[in-house]
Structures are given as C-alpha cells and as structure tokens.
C-alpha cells in the first residue's frame, strides 16, 4: 500500500515527507512501546503509534522504518519533524484511534507483521 493510500484511508494529514508518498508500506505494526518495535526485522513497515515524542522517530531511525502514522491527532513537535526530515522518514497523523486506524488499514489490505 502506498503512503498516499494510507493517508487516504485514515483521513490523514502529511506532516513531513510529502515527496515520498509513493513509497510502499509492506506491513503495519501498531505499538506505543518502542522496544517491541525494535524486535522487528522486517523491511518497509508502517509504524502506527500514539507516542508523539522524539523517541518514536529515533526508534524508526534505528529500525530502518521509513514512515510513521500518529493516531488520535497527536502532533509531532518541531524537533521530531527536524529529525524525520534529516532521516527521510515520513510523518503522518490521523484523527482516528489506533484501533480504528489499524482496522481500516488492515481491511484495505495492509498486512500485519504478525
């Protein structure tokens, strides 16, 4: 699923990385616990999280995750955006809950990691 499609499915908004919306997300992972995210070795994941702090972007950087969707209308801060732009990570937001956003994306065909 392209990131453009992700944004469309969840009434989303792109905060940074507008030039990368043709990227493909091969699977999704929803979590607010960063060490759980770091157990994943898969490529091209979409991280769905409510953790709107710089550590979510750092975790994505360490795990080579190129796209993050923040749920519940959480807004990335300036330092998060700066780090994401430096690393080429796309940041998106959705007004939906994690359950709804994950459900909509799963229904639309985004595969789970497990």
């Amino acid at each position, binding site marked *: 699923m392209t990131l453009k499609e992700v944004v469309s499915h969840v009434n989303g908004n792109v905060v940074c990385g507008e030039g990368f919306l043709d990227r493909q997300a091969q699977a999704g992972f929803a979590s*607010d*616990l*960063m*060490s*759980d995210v*770091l*157990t994943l*070795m898969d490529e091209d994941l979409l991280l769905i*999280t409510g*953790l709107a*702090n*710089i*550590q*979510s972007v*750092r*975790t994505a*950087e*360490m*795990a*080579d995750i190129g796209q993050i969707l923040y749920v519940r209308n959480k807004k990335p801060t300036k*330092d998060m955006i700066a780090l994401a732009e430096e690393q080429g990570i796309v940041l998106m937001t959705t007004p939906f809950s994690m359950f709804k956003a994950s459900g909509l994306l799963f229904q639309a065909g985004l595969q789970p990691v497990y």
Partner: protein
Amino acid sequence: MELTAGDFSHAGQASSQIKQMLKQLNIAPQVIKRVVIALYEAEVNVIAHSYGGKVTCRINPEGIEIHVSDQGPGIEDLDLAMTDGFSTASEEIREMGFGAGMGLSNMKNNVDSLDISTGKDSPTKIYMHVAFTSQGETDHETG
C-alpha cells in the same frame, strides 16, 4: 560518548552518530542494524536506569565491539532483568514509550557475544560483539 542520566531528549543520538559512521565505512546493512539496535537499547538503559555512563564502539577485523558502562546503581538480579517483559521502569519512563522489558533481550538477540558485569550498588559494564560474518554468511570487507 558520554550519556547523561535522564537525558531522554538526546537518547539515541550516540547510536545515530555511530550508525552514520558505520554506513560511511560501508559495513553491511544487516550488521549495522544489529549493532545499532543493541547500542540504542543499551544507550536508553543507561539514560533511563543509571546515574550516567558512556558507550564506546570499536571496529576490529572480525566485527564491531560495543562497550557500555555506567556509574551504578547496578542490576540486582540479572537473570530476572533478562526476562522478557520484566522492567523496573518508572511511570514517567513508560509514558515515554520505554519500559517494555525487552531491552536486554533485544541486545542479546542482535549480538554474537554479550557479557554483563553488574550487581547491587555497583557499576554495570556490558561488552557486546557483532561479527561481520555469522551463521555462514560470506565475508564482508571491513572499513
């Protein structure tokens, strides 16, 4: 690199800098990922749980060595600490997204050797090694 206790705003910076250096040295991406995850987990542990410490990364012909040490307070029961899901993280730390209790486990799963020396009211010293070749993969050139 020095790590300051409680300085979550900079947590990951040391790991990020080392990641950039390893990329510039053309180290294999799979090796970099393993090193970086082990390093980041160690870095966060020092910041979250210790009085402060430091992390050093060295490249030798066989692979990459990571040395992490702190000024205490030490891990009282290491076997318990290594158990998946066990965490001593405070509520404040959990609100930041840490405290899953997977840190030491993630370190162990990403390195080829792990040696931890610690104890109650003692500094903790961790040595990790990630080999350039492991599980029968072909050799990669070192930087």
